[in-house]
């Protein structure tokens, strides 16, 4: 049973600490996978299927093999392979330069037998081959709808979104003999990739080393070995040289995962007091060709009668991958609008209705958020400011786990020169892992953070799990804390001999070990270290469940301005109140929340994968027409850290969840126009105005 440090007395833990690797990143010295250069390294490139559905008849690589600079050609999809989506790996080349590799791809002759495809979910959902029909509404639901004081009915949707990591997927593979290789890759799981790649290549797990010092975004799409990893390993083996294979933007967008869409035909009813009586819905969406799709609907709020049916729709599109809080933002955006519409149907304040259907932490957050945001200033009537620019407010909520789990193994060494190394095989998805690892240790040992070197991102270090589900900090920090306390115990034992006081009377701060009751009795940290043996102090740490806790709630309030002439929605303010438990670093926690909100704004207003049913091709596999929000889309974002307990919890995913729902509701409040299909583009608002005339 340990406890976290009292934040009113800490120098690092829980304070605003800038990232320890910041200087490396801004100066360009940080080594991403893209930056790895090895002697004799070749460049790989992958040929993707031009068709959404086809069978490979033949692949002729003879011309490609003769092209200048080409060292290896590898066929991924041999004759007979059924291709399920555009961009699916067909063949790959390794050559001396990237240009040569790309030229050689064009020389590969593939004969395809084109098959019929379906790429738009709504179109595929009409096709019995690809989705079963929905059964009729249950008697119970029908009865509940009839008994409700207010009912609403509508169709809602959220489109397929793409992770769009700024650093594309890819790796560098170097074989060190026939059954041993090292790979540098952009990944959320160095140990998971090691196991997966060893199995895939048929070599002992201990013979594979995976390194990921820094990565440029994963969002859930880099949790395992991507198909390009195996292709790269095969090319490197064939070419007998290291190969770097980074996906280009097109195939990145087409093949490395996406967040599924969600379509829901909803009928819902509420009672006069705002209590949700019934939610009935037919839901469907696509995860690509697999038949797996579902969403947690209705989200958070419970109705007395729930009749929800989900259907996966098979389409000839790239497979999904977990995308920051998988399916939660979709479920939230739809649920929050349904709940909002019920409130208006009852003539009730939308926040009041939510309070009638929540309790505990979330209810407190709604009440606090409303006060901080100035909800009472809101005009109860939607679309009530006449004129061109109209403002409105909306609200949404989130629920997430974010607890930690066992397995991480930390090794901490205090050297005789007073430097400290902390090694563990986790990775930094972008949350600032190294910074809290170093903070925890520097705090407990009373040294400057610059004396602690946090070493992560290497499968040769002790095991740690994948960075998914917002579990990394809650898994890793307790293990680091355990090691840190053990090192502190050993340090004080050594110091106790030197100051002639019992170890339990000692404390450490500002590079000194001193007696708590009489700080004048002290010795410097450096001096204690100088008396250590050659091995220094070695402390190991494992998970301590008492230091973490899962289960976090959050609410967000959004204010937008709608331009009734152009349909532009301008986000003005977003207040994000999130349960963060005991935060390791205030700065990176707030930055994590801001990042979530930014992604939520993209989902609310801009992002959508566009498919063309006639050709089966994706129309925007790029950063031009797949529109991420930029600086001009940014509102004032105010993160509010809501403290409920003194245990560490994850905050990576929750902040992306409520934003789109809150913005959609704010758009309605501002304009009186309910846009039930995200993203809320000028087109949709203008069409709604055209319909109203």
């Amino acid at each position, binding site marked *: 049973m340990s406890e976290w440090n009292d934040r009113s007395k800490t120098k690092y833990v829980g304070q605003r600490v800038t990232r320890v690797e910041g200087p490396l990143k801004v100066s360009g010295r940080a080594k991403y996978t893209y930056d790895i250069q090895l002697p004799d390294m070749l460049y790989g490139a992958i040929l993707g299927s*031009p068709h959404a559905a086809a069978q490979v008849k033949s692949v002729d690589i003879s011309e490609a093999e003769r092209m200048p600079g080409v060292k290896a050609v590898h066929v991924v999809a041999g004759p007979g392979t059924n291709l399920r989506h555009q961009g699916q790996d067909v063949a790959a080349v390794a050559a001396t330069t990237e*240009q040569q590799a*790309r*030229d050689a791809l*064009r020389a590969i002759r593939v004969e395809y037998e084109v098959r019929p495809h379906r790429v738009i979910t709504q179109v595929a959902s009409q096709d019995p081959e690809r989705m079963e029909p929905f059964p009729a509404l249950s008697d119970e639901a029908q009865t509940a709808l009839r008994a409700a004081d207010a009912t609403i009915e509508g169709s809602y949707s959220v489109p397929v979104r793409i992770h769009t990591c700024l650093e594309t997927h890819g790796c560098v593979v170097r074989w060190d003999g026939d059954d041993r290789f090292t790979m540098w890759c952009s990944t959320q799981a160095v140990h998971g990739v090691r196991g997966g790649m060893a199995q895939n290549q048929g070599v002992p797990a201990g013979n594979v080393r995976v390194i990921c010092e820094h990565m440029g975004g994963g969002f859930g799409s880099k949790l395992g070995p991507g198909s390009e990893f195996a292709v790269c390993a095969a090319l490197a083996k064939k070419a007998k040289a290291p190969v770097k294979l980074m996906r280009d933007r097109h195939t990145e967008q087409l093949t490395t995962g996406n967040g599924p869409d969600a379509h829901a035909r909803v009928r819902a009813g509420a009672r006069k007091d705002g209590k949700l009586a019934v939610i009935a819905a037919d839901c469907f969406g696509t995860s690509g060709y697999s038949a797996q799709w579902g969403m947690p609907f209705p989200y958070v709020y419970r109705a007395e009668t729930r009749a929800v049916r989900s259907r996966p729709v098979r389409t000839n599109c790239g497979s999904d991958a977990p995308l920051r809080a998988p399916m939660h933002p979709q479920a939230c955006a739809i649920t929050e609008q349904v709940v909002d519409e019920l409130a208006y149907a009852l003539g009730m304040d939308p926040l009041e209705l939510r309070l009638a259907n929540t309790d505990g932490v979330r209810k407190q957050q709604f009440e606090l958020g409303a006060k901080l945001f100035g909800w009472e200033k809101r005009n109860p009537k939607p679309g009530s400011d006449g*004129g*061109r*620019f109209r403002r409105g407010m909306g609200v949404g909520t989130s629920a997430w786990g974010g607890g930690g789990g066992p397995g991480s193994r930390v090794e901490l060494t205090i050297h005789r020169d007073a430097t400290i190394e902390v090694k563990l095989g986790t990775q930094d998805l972008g949350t600032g892992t190294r910074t809290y690892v170093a903070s925890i240790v520097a705090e407990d040992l009373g040294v400057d953070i610059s004396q602690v070197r946090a070493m992560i991102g290497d499968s040769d270090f002790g095991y740690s799990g994948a960075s998914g589900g917002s579990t990394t900090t809650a898994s890793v920090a307790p293990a680091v804390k355990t090691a840190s306390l053990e090192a502190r115990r050993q340090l004080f034992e050594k110091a106790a001999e030197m100051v002639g006081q019992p170890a339990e009377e000692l404390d450490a701060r500002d590079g000194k070990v001193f007696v708590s009751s009489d700080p004048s009795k002290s010795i410097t940290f450096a001096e204690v270290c100088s008396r250590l043996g050659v091995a220094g102090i070695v402390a190991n740490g494992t998970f301590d469940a008492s230091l973490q806790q899962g289960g976090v709630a959050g609410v967000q309030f959004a204010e937008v301005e709608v331009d009734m*002439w*152009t*349909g*532009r929605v301008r986000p003005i303010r977003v207040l994000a109140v999130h349960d963060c438990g005991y935060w390791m670093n205030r700065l990176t926690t707030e930055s994590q929340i801001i990042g979530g909100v930014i992604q939520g704004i993209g989902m609310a207003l*801009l992002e959508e994968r*566009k498919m*063309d*049913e*006639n*050709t089966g*091709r994706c*129309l*925007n596999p790029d950063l*031009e*027409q797949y*529109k991420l*929000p*930029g*600086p*001009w*889309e940014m509102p004032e974002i105010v993160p509010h850290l809501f403290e409920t307990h003194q245990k560490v919890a994850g905050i990576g995913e929750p902040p992306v969840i409520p934003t789109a729902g809150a913005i959609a509701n704010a758009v309605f409040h501002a304009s009186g126009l309910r846009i039930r299909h995200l993203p809320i*583009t*000028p*087109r*949709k608002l*203008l*069409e709604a*105005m*055209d319909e109203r005339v």
Partner: protein
Amino acid sequence: MNAFEWVTPKDLKGAVSALSGDSAKVLAGGIDLLCEMKEGLVTPSHVVNLKSIAGLNQMVGRDDLRIGALVTLTELAESESVRSQYKAVAEAALSVGSPQIRNVGTVGGNLCQRPRCWYYRDVAIECLKKGGDRCFAEDGENEYHAILGGGPCHIVHPSDLAPALIAFDAKVEIQGTSARSLPLLDFFVLPAVNWGQENVLAPNEIVTAVTLPKATAGWKSAYYKFRERESFDWALASAAVTLRMSGNTVQDCRVVLGGVAPIPWRSKEAESALKGKTISPALAEAAGKAAVTGAKPLKHNGYKVRLAANVVRIALLRAAGLEEA
């Protein structure tokens, strides 16, 4: 991209003769050309670099203002004489892309850039413009396509500069085996005339300059560009408006729309609605509505009719210095 030969001519004559090769392309800023080469849309055997030719990057003003084809968008946007005499042109230049693109992108390149239509940009799709037999936007995803002047191809012209320059009666200078000059409005061609290209340039011709006449200098003007994404995007609809005022009366004017037609779209209807009238918010609204006369939207772009009307309205209010609602 395919391997190519890099040609650096010393003068225009050398550039023109280099262009007579089998598949040569001109490079100014190179932004659009490199995109097209990377996507495999063009595979030139020779790339003719114009940067080495003296004088092409000069802006010279005596009475009129002659803007060399290699003047960058940043230079144009920051030019004091452009900002004071031809305000809409400076505004249009500033609305293009991003700072990095404006620092490299040129006036000539902006006028000659190829369309952004996503069917055209996908090398695997054999559309009309690429020698195929149909326009895929016609019964496809056409929310970003033309509502005016479309058919048989339905692209919109992506240039921001063109509507603003045309609104000041700009002329374009062209050098081939001989030199010619024509109104910039006549430089662009509708797909009904030639769907393979967007302008009248022959394969061995180069745009060398654009001239803004003295006659329109100092007219009140504005360029308003509406983007789906405020940060770095193409026009969903844009409008350049120039006004010669006598007190509150519109003596003469030009209204040119971008992003709604395969060419920069001069609206005579909007101009007629304005001429001789007293400028007012109501007149701006009426002229906006007149600007979309004859619009024929496709299945998914009907919203552009209302949008384009309001974009013209906003540009007019800005040009006239009237409060926007």
